[in-house]
């Protein structure tokens, strides 16, 4: 019987021990969960498996044969396919080309496009994804891109498939497609490594799981028998977390953000909504419902064609991110790699970039003050980094997300905080802390707008929820009326109207 076996894996980066002496094995036909806090070493393990990085010590064996992959190509040849945490697609190539990159069907060096489109079309249909194989990836939404990445794993007849947080940008509907797919792969006898911060997914999918903590093996469960939520959380975080939502009642005050009739290229019809002081307003919807696009218009990240945005009654016009920030409206963006992190700059710099104008007299920066702020957030958000001087690209995905949050939390005069997918890729422990911070901000009188695709999160933390469907605000729910069924029903488009999406 086939199996995947890790033994004694260790890997260090300057100042960080990402993995130390990790060993476990997974039998064929199993879906194995890999869990741990942000920075625990999950992605590192997967990168080693994919040949992208080399371990300092230790070995990986498949069916007892030691793998010596030193490139992605070698790993492929050994039957290993990896869907990485950060999307790895080429925007200007077609979906089909992306899916067969590195393995084009060819005749004498010439790509057989007919065969390619046919094969890809078949695969996509098979897994139930409605995307044109000829469409350029640049024209797809993030969720659709994620599905393309996942389709990659199916296209190739691999023995080992590793998925690093594949659902972090999928809607529940798309996640369902993925879960069905994983079920099929498992039946076909593949070995599947599944990284996720979502415990319910682990319980639903996995045959066993492994927990990493600080680069070490914290627990290994060959089966899920007797494993509970509580055990996993305490193995991951090292402490008990009773109620991760921790919601408590708040008093909504005056209207702080008032959006009237705003519209733009990707939100064609004028939309209006208000957010009040001390309230946490949720935006729920399926992927592509237009939530992110709406928030980008409100923030001025994209130019609005019509509408007004008022903060405490003052009109911002036209809105630009800079004006918005000065007026106390900030947005923590959804796509951290493209719109969030400033590559090549330190953690401290990434935190200070926006707020430093408040404490830089005559345009002179004050490094000591920025250092202090950075250290404060590194401690309070438990950002795993060797120092505040570390280049942000070297942080794990979840820790990058925390740094971006810290950037906005360090803004002094915030009146309205919009966070788009605030806990994407964030571990349970940190999630609870982030919710706590959002509550504290709301209680200080800030209007907090949370855009989220995670139904439990929306229900767990929001005081009021607006549901978007096909780029319109379709329904509103007070906290008392929140239920999964109601929200989903409001988010799903009418059967009559075809779903707007896909091809741009």
């Amino acid at each position, binding site marked *: 019987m086939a199996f995947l076996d890790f033994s004694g894996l260790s890997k260090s980066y300057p100042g960080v021990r990402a993995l130390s002496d990790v060993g476990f094995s997974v039998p064929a036909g199993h879906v194995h969960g890999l869990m741990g806090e942000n920075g625990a070493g999950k992605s590192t393990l997967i990168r080693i498996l994919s040949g992208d990085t080399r371990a300092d010590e230790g070995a990986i064996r498949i069916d007892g044969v030691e793998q010596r992959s030193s*490139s992605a190509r070698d790993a492929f040849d050994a039957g290993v396919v990896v869907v990485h945490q950060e999307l*790895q697609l080429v925007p200007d190539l077609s979906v089909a080309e992306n899916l067969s*990159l590195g393995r084009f069907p*060819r005749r004498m060096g010439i790509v057989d496009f007919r065969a390619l489109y046919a094969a890809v079309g078949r695969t996509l249909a098979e897994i139930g994804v409605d995307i044109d194989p000829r469409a350029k990836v640049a024209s797809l939404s993030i969720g659709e891109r994620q599905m393309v990445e996942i389709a990659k794993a199916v296209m190739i007849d691999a023995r080992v498939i590793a998925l690093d947080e594949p659902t972090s940008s999928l809607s529940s509907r798309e996640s369902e497609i993925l879960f069905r797919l994983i079920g099929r792969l498992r039946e076909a006898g593949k070995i599947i490594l599944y990284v996720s911060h979502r415990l319910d997914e682990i319980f639903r999918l996995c045959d066993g799981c492994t927990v990493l903590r600080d680069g070490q093996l914290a627990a290994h469960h060959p089966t899920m028998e007797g494993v509970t939520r509580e055990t996993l959380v305490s193995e991951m975080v090292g402490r008990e977390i009773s109620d991760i939502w921790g919601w408590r009642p708040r008093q909504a005050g005056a209207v702080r953000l008032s959006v009237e009739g705003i519209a733009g290229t990707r939100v064609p019809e004028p939309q209006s909504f208000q957010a009040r002081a001390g309230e946490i307003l949720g935006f729920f919807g399926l992927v592509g419902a237009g939530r992110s696009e709406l928030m980008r218009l409100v923030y001025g990240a994209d130019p609005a064609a019509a509408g007004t945005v008022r903060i405490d009654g003052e009109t911002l016009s036209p809105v630009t991110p800079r004006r918005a920030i000065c007026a106390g409206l900030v947005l923590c963006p959804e796509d951290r790699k493209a719109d969030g992190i400033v590559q090549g700059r330190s953690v401290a710099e990434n935190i200070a970039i926006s707020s430093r104008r408040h404490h830089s007299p005559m345009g002179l920066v004050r490094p000591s003050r920025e250092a202090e702020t950075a250290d404060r957030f590194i401690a309070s958000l438990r950002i795993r980094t060797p120092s505040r001087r570390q280049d942000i690209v070297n942080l794990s995905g979840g820790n990058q997300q925390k740094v971006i949050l810290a950037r906005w939390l360090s803004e002094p005069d915030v009146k309205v905080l919009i966070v788009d997918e605030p806990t994407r890729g964030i571990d349970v422990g940190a999630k609870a802390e982030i919710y706590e911070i959002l509550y504290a901000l709301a209680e200080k009188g800030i209007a907090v707008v949370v855009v989220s695709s995670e139904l439990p999160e929306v229900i767990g933390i929001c005081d009021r929820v607006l549901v978007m469907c096909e780029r319109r605000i379709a329904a509103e729910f007070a906290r008392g009326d929140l239920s999964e069924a109601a929200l989903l029903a409001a988010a799903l488009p009418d059967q009559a109207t075809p779903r707007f999406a896909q091809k741009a």
Partner: protein
Amino acid sequence: MTATIKRILLGEQGLLVLFVLAFAVVSLTVPNFLTERNILGLLQSVVTIGIVACTMMFCLASRDFDLSVGSIVAFAGMVAVMVSNETGSIPLGLLAALLAGTLVGFVNGVVIAKLRINALITTLATMQIVRGLALIASDGRAVGINDPAFYSLALSRFFGVPTPVWIMAILFAIFAFVLNRTVFGRNTLAIGGNPEASRLAGVDVDWGRIGIFALQGLVCAVAGILLASRITSGQPNAATGLELSVISACVLGGVSLAGGRATMSGVIVGVLILGIAENVMNLLNIQAFYQYVVRGLILLFAVLLDTLRSRALGRR
């Protein structure tokens, strides 16, 4: 009405449409422009730029940069002439030149892809080294061609069109095919579009880049041979500044310096725009100093239109 015009001008084929319009205007207004002789002369004048642009397109599309092309053209021309003279055999001379060009390109590629030295700096360095070698080999002098058969390369014609123009046209066709239909071409675009993703997908990025540079060297050698034949000698200081003209032509033709985007038709239009601009300025007898200014303005204007077009298409 205006919407339609806008759609046509700023559409996918906008550059081409604009080019056709501009060509029509020039043909009608500039005396002596639209004559067979002049058009053939114009085409011959863009042979070097056109040929080198074929592979520069690949280079830019893969997010690289090659400043050494002018030096390789000169060097290969020198080699062709010197070896032909030495051995008395033109084929041997041509072979040596093609090998020399490919070798320089290959070295560029290896240094850039394997030692991971910045392409700009590497090719800036080889640009100087190779120019130096050309000068050293010839002691800084032009080397005359002994065997007049060598000239016929440039002087011969098929169906009234000079051979170099045919060669350029054939290379355009070949490289359009290579870019769109071969694994090499698609990988090139992938490497430029997202090097990291390409590497993770198992594309051999290093060897892809090396291949592009080697091909660039080979194609520069072809251009160098034709140039030597046209000017009937190998000149060590030929083709200085070629790199900027070629890169301009490519960018005019919509090749993105950020990698991942290129079309052969665009590059051809870019090459022709540059050639027509020079030709028309001379036909209109615009003073040399004003030519600088006009050249700059045309460049700006053409790219501005392309930018508007891309923006209208909603690309970022």
